[in-house]
């Protein structure tokens, strides 16, 4: 029986929608950062395609920085996205989570690591501490995003995608 899979999957469609939302919500930093986090840790990590994952990670980082332009030198967020996202994708493929709490733990640790790396990169580039309360709000809202991506992962497992 043929099991040829379509290139267009629900995860990729959601990732594209999230990227468009990130690009169009530059005037609302909190909403943009939340959607960016969802794209980074939820939809962007595509176990079937390393290159697509890299694309989502890079584009989402540059989109946020180019729309906000809070610092004169950009690129720290894209670098943090690529570094943490690719490592997280490797870990997900190597040690796939079988419970929601494991999934949430992976999310939260990846989020914290990503945030620290972004802050460090931003400090390296601009010599400023780019702290903002929206990072805390996003951390509080993290279980909702993790639940959404967990449901997506479960659905993909049932469909054997």
């Amino acid at each position, binding site marked *: 029986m043929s099991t040829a899979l379509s290139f267009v999957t629900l995860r990729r469609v959601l990732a594209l929608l999230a990227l468009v939302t990130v690009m169009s919500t530059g005037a609302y930093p909190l909403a943009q950062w939340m959607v960016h986090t969802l794209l980074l840790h939820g939809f962007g990590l595509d176990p079937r395609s*390393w*290159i697509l994952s*890299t694309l989502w990670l*890079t584009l989402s980082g540059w989109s946020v920085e180019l729309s906000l332009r809070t610092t004169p*030198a950009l*690129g*720290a967020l*894209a*670098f943090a996205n*690529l*570094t943490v996202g*690719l490592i997280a994708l490797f870990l997900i493929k190597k040690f796939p989570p079988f419970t929601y709490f494991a999934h949430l733990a992976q999310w939260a640790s990846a989020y914290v690591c990503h945030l620290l790396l972004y802050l460090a*990169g931003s400090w*390296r*580039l601009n010599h400023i501490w780019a702290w903002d309360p929206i990072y805390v709000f996003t951390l509080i809202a993290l279980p909702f995003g993790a639940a959404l991506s967990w449901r997506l992962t479960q659905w993909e497992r049932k469909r054997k995608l």
Partner: protein
Amino acid sequence: MAYIGGMKSKSLRSRWIFLLIGGIWTLHFIWVALSPLSIRTEVFDTRISRAVLRWMNERHQREVARIESRRMLGDVLLENQQLKEANQILQGQQRQWTLDRETLDNLSQMLELQKSTSPEATVAEVIYHPRPRFFGTFVINKGEREGLRIDQPVITTQGVIGRIWSVGIHQSKILPVDAPNIGMAVYLSRSNSSGILQGRSQNLGEILYLRSETSVQIGESIFTSGLDNIYPRGLLVGRVKEVRNEGGSTRVLVQLSPRLDQLRYVLILPPPTPIESLNDPVVQQ
């Protein structure tokens, strides 16, 4: 040996993908980690970023100019609308002032006429005007309460208008001078002969009972003779418009002086002096 070409090509493809991903990550790493290097600041900050920033600034300036022009256009349209409304109000005021000035002029003329004729004369305003209807009468805003009586002559600065036909409490009807039943005693200024004027409507009249040997000239002025004991002598009635000789009799058509279709204010002269009964004996006191 087994065929492994496909596996080889697949691993090569995977290797290129990972090389590409690694390249992307390395570029970002160099970008972030080696940022203080002069190569980045020289190339990016002085050549590329300035051009990009200049382009973005120009775009921003164009956008600001577009928004400003749109806002200015809105302001101009709003101001234009306000000016139109103000203009309409001023035009209404001007119309009202023109009407007031005409009213004032008419009343001034009536006052002058009152001074020159009789101080007991009454000024009235025409409030109903059925012209050019045949047998049409005017209605004025003065009546019995204001001291008016039937047969009082009505005049304007242009001449005789007619006489009061009926009197109400606060309103009266005027029989115009071109009505067929007017019957006004007149005389011709140049030939000095008398006759009776009868209305022919449309601001026209005809003089009846003229002597046949009377020579009447076109354009001759016609005045009231006072012989009918209604109109005082010497009021202008009109001018001779046409003279016809028909079977030995002379028909004189008169163009009446006042424009009866343009009346607004009229002057009502005092009633005529009643004629005494000559049959009654005079009581000697």
